[in-house]
């Protein structure tokens, strides 16, 4: 299995080609093929995890093929402790997503083809190590997403789809300028590993219109990634897209796509522009704080359950930003506090993974009730606990995980983030713990309104959550609980890579004062 990364990326496309050969009314076979493809992909990803050596921080399983030599474009793939959890997450959510969408009956062939194509795009972004390739995969995701929201979504789907498309494209074209600027200033290469070496040196002291080139490129890249995260004030596309998208697409969107932004910042901004990290860390922490508070306040005000969950994503992604900003704690001027930098960045990556599983669970459960009641109005339910006890139990797990109750994985990562960021951004951390409170408030309040109180007679004979739905939720719940009690396996997996990352940011990024 020497090309395992390529197989993981391209397998869904193979599945898509097979699906395209099947007549459109054989919807059952189409679904089965999609499930088998994702299943094999999940197996491959698991195998990769098994053979991955987590004691090495560098890239493993690298693949390198000449592509367009005249522009130094190469097909380079590689996996390290930062990308492997994301690949596992995508493989898992992609597999589960197929079963979440099992009830789709409109244009089944198109739906599953696009779903698989989306999978390829996301995997490609996580594994690409050539900037050109990275950008192509980044954009390949857009069109399937546009169709999946616009064709299979809710009443306002077309508006939501085009808004998503325009927002993300605007971000990614700015990224394209930054990529080209890096290419021409840092030795005519798209090879990310080379750029990590050359960019800090080549850009040091370079001025554009009186501004440091590092700042300019940092901001261009950051906006591109921030729209994806989404960071306030670029978050307005998210609630809309989430509410209108079909359940499985919300699951993918919240579970994996939002991580692409954070992944991009860590993989690209942090390694290629370490000076910028020091310049921007304060803003990053502040933006994280705004996300936390803003997302929580908005969630508190929602009447639509799905919108509430969508805003909780804005809230949760805020913590990752806060955790990432803690990297500067390790530098000399901040007291060489390596432990808190490790806790902060490790917590951020862990939070990404946890949010992936928890928000996927939340969206699946929202979809379950929507399929039955055909609405998501929180006030429209009541006393569901007596009508659907099993469902209630799972919602309780998901909500408790979401609000960061100890014993669930979200608690561990949020605690790590606070511990990490505390020495450097004391005030921000103190204020953002308020977010936890709001977090608990909106989840518990929604829980209370939906599941307790007088039972709504209308829903007396709602069918209980069925086995297919349980099959999609249980793995996620198990992971959340397991990692909440015993997070070691995850942290061991990422620590070598993150230590290298922190080290390179801190040792190379010494010019912060010069910017």
């Amino acid at each position, binding site marked *: 299995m020497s090309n395992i990364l390529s197989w993981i990326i391209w397998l869904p496309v193979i599945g898509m080609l097979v699906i395209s050969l099947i007549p459109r009314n054989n919807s059952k076979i189409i679904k089965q093929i999609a499930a088998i493809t994702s299943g094999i992909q999940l197996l491959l990803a698991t195998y990769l995890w098994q053979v991955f050596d987590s004691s090495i921080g560098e890239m493993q399983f690298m693949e390198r093929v000449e592509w*367009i030599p005249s522009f130094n474009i190469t097909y380079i793939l590689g996996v390290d402790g930062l990308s492997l959890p994301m690949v596992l997450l995508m493989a898992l959510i992609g597999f589960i997503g197929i079963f979440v969408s099992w009830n789709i009956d*409109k244009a089944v062939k198109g739906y599953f083809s696009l779903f698989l194509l989306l999978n390829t795009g996301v995997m490609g972004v996580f594994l690409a190590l050539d900037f050109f390739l990275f950008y192509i995969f980044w*954009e390949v995701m857009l069109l399937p997403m*546009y169709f999946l929201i616009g*064709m299979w979504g809710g009443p306002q789907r077309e508006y939501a789809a085009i808004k998503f*498309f325009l927002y993300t494209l605007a971000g990614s*074209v700015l990224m394209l300028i930054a990529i*080209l600027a890096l290419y021409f200033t840092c030795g005519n290469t798209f090879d990310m590993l080379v750029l990590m070496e050359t960019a800090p040196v080549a850009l040091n002291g370079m001025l554009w219109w009186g501004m440091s080139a590092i700042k300019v490129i940092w901001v261009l890249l950051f906006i591109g990634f921030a729209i994806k995260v989404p960071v306030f004030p670029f978050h307005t596309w998210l609630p809309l897209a989430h509410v209108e998208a079909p359940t499985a697409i919300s699951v993918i969107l919240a579970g994996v796509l939002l991580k692409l932004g954070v992944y991009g910042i860590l993989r690209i901004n942090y390694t290629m522009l370490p000076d910028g990290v020091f310049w921007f860390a304060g803003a990053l922490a502040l933006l994280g704080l705004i996300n936390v508070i803003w997302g929580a306040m908005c969630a508190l005000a929602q009447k639509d359950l799905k919108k509430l969950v969508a805003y909780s994503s804005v809230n949760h992604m805020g913590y990752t930003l806060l955790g990432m900003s803690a990297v500067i704690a390790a530098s000399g001027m901040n007291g060489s506090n390596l432990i808190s930098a490790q806790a902060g960045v490790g917590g951020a990556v862990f939070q990404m993974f946890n949010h992936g599983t928890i928000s996927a669970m939340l969206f699946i459960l929202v979809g379950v009730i929507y399929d039955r009641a055909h609405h998501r109005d929180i006030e429209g339910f009541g006393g569901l606990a007596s009508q659907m006890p099993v469902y209630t139990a799972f919602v309780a797990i998901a909500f408790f995980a979401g609000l960061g109750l100890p014993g669930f994985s979200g608690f561990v990562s949020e605690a790590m983030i606070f511990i990490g960021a505390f020495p450097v951004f004391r005030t921000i951390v103190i204020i953002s713990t308020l977010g936890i409170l709001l977090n608990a408030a909106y989840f518990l309040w929604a829980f209370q309104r939906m599941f307790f109180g007088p039972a709504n007679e209308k829903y007396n004979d709602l069918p209980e959550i069925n086995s297919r739905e349980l099959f999609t939720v249980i793995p996620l719940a198990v992971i959340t609980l397991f990692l909440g009690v015993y997070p070691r396996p995850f942290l061991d997996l990422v620590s070598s890579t993150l230590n290298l990352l922190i080290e390179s940011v801190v040792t190379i990024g010494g010019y912060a004062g010069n910017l």
Partner: protein
Amino acid sequence: MSNLESLKFFWPELILSATALIAILSDLIYERKDSHKVSFWAIGGLLLTFITIRLFGGSSINGLFMGTMALDPFSEFFKILIVLSTIIVMLMSFNSSELDGYRKGEYYTIMSIMAFGLVMMTSAIDVLMFYVAIEIVSIMSFFLAGYLKRNPNSNEASLKYVIYGAFSSGVMLYGLSILFGLTGETNFFAIKNAISQLGPDSNLALILSIVFILVGLGYKISAVPFHFWTPDVYEGSPTSITAYLSVAPKAAGFALIIRFFNIAFGSNSAMGSDEWSSLNSLPWPFLIALLSAATMTIGNLVAIQQQSVKRMLAYSSIAHAGYMMMAIPVMSQSGIYGLMIYLFMYMLMNLGAFFVVMYVQDKFDGENFDAFNGLGWKMPLLGISMTLFMVALTGLPPTSGFVGKFYIFAAVIEAGNQYYWLAFVGVINSVVSLYYYIKVVRHMYFEGERSDIVSLPESKLTTSLVLVLALPTFFLGWYFSPLVEWANNSLNFFLGI
């Protein structure tokens, strides 16, 4: 080189003119209902031209016909582009129901003559030849725009085209005569030498003459502010001709602009470091960059508001002229070959888009967005291809449109940070253009009835032509090395490297 000696390097053009003559003659023989058979002769002749262009490929001679024409890989690239697009448009016209009821003999004849003029434009190195070639092209395009003589829109298109065309070529001719008055030369190289001898007191006259020449050339590539004819002409002309006008004259116009400004006004015949050297009293690169930004912005903003897909594509072709113009102020080797790559990609995707519009117009009787409703479900092949063309025109990977834009933006960014703003305007415009291109996709898939009955276009020719345009549009987005090499080599000769 004397005229007789030159003839043996002139085979492609000779064959092309013979093609036009044979087409006229054969038109006399065929019955009215068989007049479309003229196209067999025309297409045959063009294929032969294509082959001869390839046969003469690689040679580089600068002084054909007493120093009025050049034969070099640079012109070869554009000749191939023009001949290819002519062949494709002729094939497109086969199934055009708009042309039914008109004699088709002249149609193909005029197109062959126009192709001849375009080919001459790409290789002219003499002001006279340059003017004659442009006029051949212009006059033939007036005919073609007004070919549907019983259709008032087509008449209007032709008349507008004539008025704008006559005016702008008059202005250009005035500019050329000022230039001749200053230098006493008509050959580009001689003009360059003469300009370098001019004193500073002739600056004003020189600037005037360049502005006037730019009016004429700007009109040909429909750059703002000389674009006002474009939407009406594009809308009124037969759709096949609109497709042709949006691609071939633009390519030839850019070829001429590059050659003329680089030879006559560049510091040396290669675009060296000291670009635009004879003209440094005005910030030319900045002015052209500004025009380019205006062209794409206006093209895009107006395209958003269009109800007719054909008119939307007309404005979008203005925007594309703007993207291509981004490469000109940069005046670097990578800028020019970026432009060449862009033109090639643009030819495929734009002809493809117009072809689908033409088909929809014939079949569903309407060119508004509503005519596309549900097309993606009724005819998956056309729907997917049109989606591909739209995505490529937007410039999203992995399509050839992205590769074209990528090379242009790369050239702009390579030129240094004084042009970053231009790249910025360019990418924001790409985002804006997504809105109206994706509108077509939205109508094809999200609106209208979903049908369970799938069909292919009736004619095999239509199906295969769509594939011929769509497959490269997709695959050139993944692997474009050969094209890049070809464009790059074409330039090396031109630059004398």
